[in-house]
């Protein structure tokens, strides 16, 4: 899957600008990252991976930040570190966020294959990067498609 690459402190206002927050996710997603990459929203393809620097997702609790990425078809996020609140939001939406110290080695357009148990293969560069394994309870959320379908399953069982 193709990588899009951004810098440190990619914030939630860049992902979901405040002026569009009153609208639904279709409209917010059209403006996702427009202040740093005006073509991103129109050119990103289903399955693509967004790679960023340190503290990916800092800022607001607004869940529309990861939701806009999910809506655009982004399949996973990779960074050396994530802002904690954003990290929780990603998994609650079923969007895996992978902590990888070597994320800085990934270049725009590189083809990546992620194994959530702890590695990323860079098919373009024939490199493999170790990453932190995703905790079991968060892998369950990803498998279930997020917290809402997960709760649906739990309530049905109960």
């Amino acid at each position: 899957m193709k990588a899009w690459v951004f810098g440190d402190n990619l914030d939630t206002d860049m992902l979901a600008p405040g002026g569009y927050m009153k609208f639904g996710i279709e409209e917010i997603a059209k403006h996702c990252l427009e202040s740093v990459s005006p073509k991103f929203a129109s050119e990103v393809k289903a399955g693509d991976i967004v790679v960023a620097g340190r503290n990916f997702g800092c800022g607001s609790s607004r869940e529309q930040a990861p939701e806009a990425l999910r809506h655009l078809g982004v399949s996973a996020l990779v960074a050396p570190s994530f802002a904690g609140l954003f990290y929780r939001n990603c998994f609650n939406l079923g969007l895996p966020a992978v902590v990888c110290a070597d994320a800085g080695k990934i270049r725009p357009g590189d083809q990546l294959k992620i194994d959530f148990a702890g590695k990323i293969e860079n098919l373009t560069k024939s490199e493999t990067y170790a990453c932190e394994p995703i905790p079991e309870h968060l892998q369950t959320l990803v498998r279930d498609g997020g917290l809402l379908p997960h709760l649906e399953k739990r309530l049905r069982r109960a």
Partner: protein
Amino acid sequence: MTAQTLAQKLVAKAAGRAAVTPGEIVTCKVDLAMMHDSGGPRRVKPMLERLGAKVWDPSKVVVIADHYVPEFDDQSRKILKIARDWVKEAGVTNFYDTQGICHVVLPERGHLRPGMFAVGGDSHSPTGGAFAAYMFGVGATELLGVLVTGEIWLKVPHTIAMDFSGKFSAGVCAKDVMLSLIGRLGMDGGEYQAVEYRGAAIRALPMQERMTLCNMAAELGAQTGLVASDSVTRDFLKTDVETWDGDEKAEFFKHHKFQAEKLAPQVAAPHSPANTKEVKEFENTKINLAYIGACTGAKLEDLRMAAKVLKGRKAKIRFLVAPASLRDQQTAEKEGVLKILTDAGAEILPNSCGICAGYGGHLLPDDCVAISSTARNFKGRMGSPQAQGYLGSPYTVAASAVAGHIADPRQML
């Protein structure tokens, strides 16, 4: 039993345990869930309906309409209507409509007590930690999880201690502390752990200043900010409360020590609170707007600080003030603080998140160079991505309004 930090004690209580260890994952019972009109009912109502579920305990839910008030277009009217209808349907009686910003209204109306474990649907929810409650921000889906189950998972945090000895100088306040810490340690310096503010200089701060410290734990990247409860907490809440503090022998993950006297007013340059230097580095920067607003920078204490600078002075540039709560505005009016601000030329805006959240009708235009008492100057957050936003304390914003350029408030006190 190993000695526990304040954060560990609060988490252990919520997890029904005698003690917890940093790094372990626990499930906590939630004493209070706060949400606002933007991330609250409009987002959780459809999800609750999909699940066919009800709120676990409506008495533990507080809804505060502060983002889209006052309504300014069809979308905001719709969002507010959903909130107002939903509280009735869900049986939530703790509803504050257009009374001010959630983080300020929540303790002002007595909903926070030391020892509580609380979540809020907003990133500045760590503000509640000033009351020795463990409070942190969550997104809408996680809030839904709390509303349905009354529980939430947590990785027990380490504690990073920020220890300030001595006393802050006149014209230096909690906002300067936070800008300085964020400038020094970065926006991820809090490592999503608990930051605990300690020391004589912190104990001497009034409650709303402690709230500013914990509020901006968000910009420091911590999960929460905490201050142990004491007589200041009791006096603010006007009731007897438990004293919550860490064990004396508890170990900190990191222990930063500072001398309060050494801190000067701080200013953050565009476009990050981490771009912070002492005010003297920016004194020739011309500005055309000064803004005192938000949960971070427009509480009663913040308005009082601005008034100390502005008494008998006039703003040279456009000067906007959005008091953080209606009650704080009314008290400021009674004290004569509000009159000092309006005499200086302040336009008073509604008690809402407004410009700070990028909402409402006063967003920064392209050619704007602003200094603001808010928390974040991210590119485009407060309006146009071309606008230049500086951050400073209420003292510094007021002094800059008078000077027409960024100015050191200590010359005007």
